[in-house]
């Protein structure tokens, strides 16, 4: 059991303390943007923000989250009113299969919060944790750049 904040709302979850945040988001809170990829913290598909930092939710037990602020992709905007990062990814058509994209956007959100005008090298360095198997990397990099300019 743990109490924390998700996208600005206080939540109290019933899951055991060692349950990964990803399972709680998807199964208990019906927030399905974060994806299960490898389950080992190696692909980045499950990336969310905790207190503004990018965190891999598949290997983050809810025990770590007591009193903290979690932000998922749902917290950045909606299909009707996309946030600026989401709009940039749409404009650059940065998704192919799209499975990695929520994680990519959250990783980029953490970067832009700290470094609003990143250089190409800074974008590459920050994003290298997240994998895309379709190969849309160039579009993803452009989308991050576009969001920084927006």
């Amino acid at each position, binding site marked *: 059991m743990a109490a924390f904040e998700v996208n600005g709302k206080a939540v109290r979850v019933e899951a*055991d*303390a*060692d*349950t*990964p945040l990803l399972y709680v988001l998807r199964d208990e809170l019906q927030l399905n943007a974060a994806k299960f990829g490898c*389950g*080992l*913290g*190696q692909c980045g598909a499950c990336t969310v*923000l*905790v*207190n503004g*930092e*990018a*965190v*891999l939710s598949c*290997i*983050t*037990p809810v*025990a*770590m*989250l007591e009193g*903290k602020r979690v932000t998922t992709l749902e917290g950045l905007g909606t299909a009707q009113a996309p946030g600026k990062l989401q709009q940039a990814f749409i404009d650059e058509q940065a998704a192919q299969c799209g499975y990695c994209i929520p994680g990519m956007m959250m990783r980029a959100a*953490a970067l832009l919060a700290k470094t609003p005008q990143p250089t190409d*090298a800074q974008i590459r*360095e920050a994003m290298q*944790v997240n994998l895309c198997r379709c190969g849309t990397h160039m579009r993803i990099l452009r989308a991050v750049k576009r969001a920084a300019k927006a």
Partner: protein
Amino acid sequence: MRALLTFLAVACLLPGGACTSSIDPRPDSLRQSFDERVIEHGAQLAAIGDCYGCHTTRHGAPFAGGVGMHSPFGTIYSSNITPDRQAGIGAWTEEAFRRALREGVRRDGAHLYPAFPYDRFALVSDEDAHALYAYLMTRTPARAAPPRNELVFPFNVRAGLALWKALYLRAPPAQKQTDAVLARGEYLVEGLGHCGSCHSPRNALFAEERERAYQGGDLEGWHAYAIESHIKAPIPWDADALAFYLRNGWHPLHGAARGTMGLVTAELRAAPEADVRAMAAYTVALMGAAAQRRSANATRLEQEPLRQPRDAPGFGRDTYRSACLQCHDGAEAMPFGGVQLTRSLGLHGESPRNLINVILHGLGPAQGATSPMMPGYAGALDDAQVVELVTWLRANLTDEAPWPDFRRVVEESRRMDPGTLSFPPGGAGTDPLFAKAP
């Protein structure tokens, strides 16, 4: 102030003291050529000395210097050792290079700071110094000038280094080992490899404490573990395991190298295997009989897939089970799985610093090599949680006494540049010279 003036006056009066002579520049017109085999030998020696690691910034040109080294007196930036005539050592004769290497004196006669380990390099033979010179003088010149040192007075006065040298610079000791392999290892470990420069504690004037040699030291946000009889490895090292570790940066019974040691192991991939084996054999001899005594758990640790924690439910156990054990359960061997934490020197060693660095920042993948990787937890864990987890790991997975209060270490680690955990092995590893080496 009076004491200081006395200090400087004394320094100037010392034999060969503050006022060492300048060596004339090499004529610009003189083109030097070196035997290709000598250059290759020099490249291998440079890998053993890890010249690249201290003389190359993360995004800088190889050997162009500018790496900041932090001391209680301020920051010293490494020199440009490319053959550029203005910014580097292009105007240096071999004699000037040899003198810098072994006596810590610049071509123009100024003293070099002992962040450059000339106290160790004093052991380097003429032949090896020649090969190193040949290698460095045939690298690509870089015009980059390193930033100015940021040292507090009086340490920003180079003349004072004469006094430091009078106090601490000794003629190299005679070799003690008679066995050929151990003698080779001794020559490399004590000299060019300068292992003791990091693995020994330093005194108030930043000199190695020779009577406590290899008992462990702290630098650049990392702890270099004791590698003599005080070593805490739960499974004793043998020469084969250590040679593997030195060349690969990890070993399944011991764990992974990162930070400053990661730079060393990345370079040693390009060193001759026989030399690395000799260094390993000598280092294991340094560890001695005491370190070879197996901890009560060693055999069990090697064979058992995993030691179950003794503890009751709680934050430490929950985190260990749901975060750590995902990879550290021994189901997959290193480097694709994590080291079983019951085997890791990170949990057993004399300092929690490296463990905390890795928990917070993870292990970035090494570029161009198979290596362990780990995601960092800096975003998910606050300082109090890190303290609780580390305390739990130490208490439940080792038989060692708890570490003294280390909250300050957590705060320091959080501020460190996480890029240092994923420094791409460069230098020798990416030097085209090695593309054709066997």
